[in-house]
């Protein structure tokens, strides 16, 4: 779900850093746009994912279910907002229109930032991203810490699968009571933690044994290069950010919305 999908697509061919700065452009746009524009941006991002990223239905469905659950939690927070126009009530709890607007705006922003970030992860080889960061001046030890973190996702996913299988094979039935489930969950987490620590230790040994950190610089088999497609894509989005800033801040077309919520 949160790994590079390695599916050939237009976005996949773009260089990693152009895509990274594109995510930043999206993050700026969500704060310029009012909620209704953010919803349009969300649809645009979905279309980009489908047509330019070739993201399949299964992956997109999984991502959307997480994003919508998150949006629901955000909207639920609207109960804590006291407004003037009540929409509905559950017992003593009243949900106001103002709460919906404020929480809806936050949810829309978060959804767009998360969707663009997920899209970045799906269509970007993490190695190219790390190499790009180093080329832009980030010390390679820090950049590789991010990389090793990304590397750890498949290991951890595999580990969780093994432990889950092992627990089932060792006769652990799923407890029906909440307390029982919490105990089982704790057992699972402790096993995952212990195994992860052990794996981390072996990875640390391997990193040291492969001379990681022996020099202040290193060479690269796959050097980072900006791509024409990626840079063009980034320029379009930078222009969109500039245009939106002019429209919002300069021409006050989004008056009352900019950072209003």
């Amino acid at each position, binding site marked *: 779900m949160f790994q590079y999908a*390695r599916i050939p697509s237009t976005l996949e061919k773009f260089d990693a850093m152009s895509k990274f700065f594109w995510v930043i452009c999206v993050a700026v746009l969500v704060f310029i746009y009012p909620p209704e524009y953010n919803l349009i941006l969300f649809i645009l991002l979905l279309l980009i994912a489908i047509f330019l990223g070739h993201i399949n239905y299964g992956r997109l469905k999984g991502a959307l279910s997480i994003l919508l659950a998150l949006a629901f939690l955000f909207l639920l927070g609207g109960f804590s907002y006291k407004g003037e126009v009540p929409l509905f009530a559950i017992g003593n709890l009243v949900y106001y229109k103002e709460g919906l607007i404020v929480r809806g705006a936050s949810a829309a922003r978060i959804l767009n930032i998360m969707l663009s970030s997920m899209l970045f992860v799906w269509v970007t080889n993490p*190695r190219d991203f790390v190499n790009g960061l180093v080329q832009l001046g980030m010390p390679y030890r820090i950049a590789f810490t991010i990389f090793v973190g990304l590397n750890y996702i498949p290991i951890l996913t595999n580990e969780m699968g*093994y432990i889950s299988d092992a627990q*089932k094979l*060792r006769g652990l039935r799923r407890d029906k009571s909440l307390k029982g489930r919490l105990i089982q969950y704790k057992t699972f987490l402790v096993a995952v933690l*212990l195994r992860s620590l052990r794996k981390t230790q072996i990875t640390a040994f391997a990193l040291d044994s*492969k001379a990681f950190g*022996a020099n202040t610089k290193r*060479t690269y*088999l796959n050097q980072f290069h900006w791509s024409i497609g990626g840079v063009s894509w980034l320029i379009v989005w930078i222009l969109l950010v500039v245009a939106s800033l002019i429209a919002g801040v300069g021409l006050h077309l989004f008056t009352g919305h900019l950072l209003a919520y």
Partner: protein
Amino acid sequence: MSSSIPLISIHNLSVTYEDTDHAVLNNINLEIGEGELVLVCGPTGCGKSTLAQVLNGLIPYTLPATITGEIEVCGKDPRVTTTPIMAREVGLVFQDPEGQLCTLFLEDEIAFGPENLMVPHDELKKRVDHLLDIIALNKFRYGSVFELSGGQKQKVNIASVLAMQPKVMVFDMPTANLDPIGSMEVFKLIRKLVNEEESTCIVIENRLDELVPLADRIIVLTQEGSIAFDGTPSEVFQHSQEIMDGLGVELPQVVELVARIKEKFPSTLEKEIPLTIDDATQWMRTLIDKRKVEIFKDIKFEQEISISQNENIVEVKDVHFSYGKGPEILKGISFDMKKGEMLAIVGNNGSGKTTLVKQLVGLLKPTAGAIKVCGMDLKTSNLVDIAARASYVFQYPEHQFVAQGQSVYDEIAFNLRTAGYDETYVKERVDLLIDRCQLHGRETVSPFMLSGGEMRTVSVACMLSTKPELLILDEPTYGQDHQRITALMLRLKELQKSGTSVIMISHDMRLVAEYASKVLLLSYGVVEFLGDPKQLFEMPELLQKAALKEPPVCTIVRNLQEAGYDFPIGIITTSAFMNAIKVR
């Protein structure tokens, strides 16, 4: 001992880990020269891996320990040099194929070390291209390392160390996950490096058949971590009996055969012990020609365990399986297994062996076909119900430790406690298993803190606790020494006698020949052979196709038969060989 300038000098070296009061390595003295291929072997927990980690500075740089004595590797003192700096001189391949992967993609993994050593881009590319050819994984070049099989991962790890071109290379059980032909390729590659590049290679290994004829020197460690023997293979194996019985190291089958003949007839042995199959064949021919040895043509192979002829414990019918929309891993597998049998599943790395056994315990569901285990149709059975009757011991023992890592006792008790047995019964059963599996003194230790061999023993003990009808073991001898393997296999034989059926996946053909009553050969998802191991080992072409290798004794017998000696067919073990001859 070394024939040239010593690259490694060790004097009175002792190593004690911080959390223990006894030294793991005890007063080690040795010198290893440039261009030597040194094999280090010894029982589980004797300090073989510790020695490897001292050489590249992981101990004490990353793993704190008290080191006494003197050590110098390529002119550096690893006690005061960081591991990343030592990595220029010493490359280390670990046992765990997955944990030592540092990147996501295959070509990146091979390039990772040399990149850190500032190897220029063109040279990097050349090294990666060359090594991908050597390990024959070019088609996966841009693929994820996590999608490779265990054996393929280990080949990548070896290539990643070779890419750094260190002066000394240390391989800590590098072929534990490889099929026999894969192991042979790795050993030949190591020998080539020594011959052509004058690299110094230290290989820690307990499977000695392929390596001994290639090694210049063998160091045998004792359980207490001191050197018992150090010399050329021929010198060291003058002490065969002591190495096998006293130290628990499995001898190469050729050496074992010679030792057993020597036992019966000491004067048959010349000064130089035959170490290769060809030498042993020639030696046998001389003995027969000189009439010192007589061949019995009619020998009986006794079946000591009765196997039910009617009752099937496993029925697999036309099973197909693929992961998601990926390629088909199992392509129409069909076979039956009778109750009380010990079935060995063999095949090359990536042939689908583990995928097949995961179907048998319900962890994976076939995309087509039907499976019945212990009378249960797996399509309609609950995983927990299946697990109560068919136990599966994972390939990597730590994968199945789930009892919060508290203690070996808790881990073994886990299945019984989840099944609801009272503590009196749990204690009685766990104590019995601790006794039978020789785990005394380890009851309160976390299973994660044990050596690889001990972890394997605990993982088997865990799955035996509930007395399953079918026990499935994935590479049960991985990382184990001879004594533990023998103890485990005898335990399995006992279980088999009491009616438990056993399936084991193994790359160890000697083990298969010795213990399996039936063998299933899987090659790229298709059953290529199902039957008596004696018949399988009569088919060298089929074995070659599946990247397997017959036990050395089979080759010796075939060589003798081809030379016109009237040896009976079906000799696949040293014992059977000894039954077929009479030493005068």
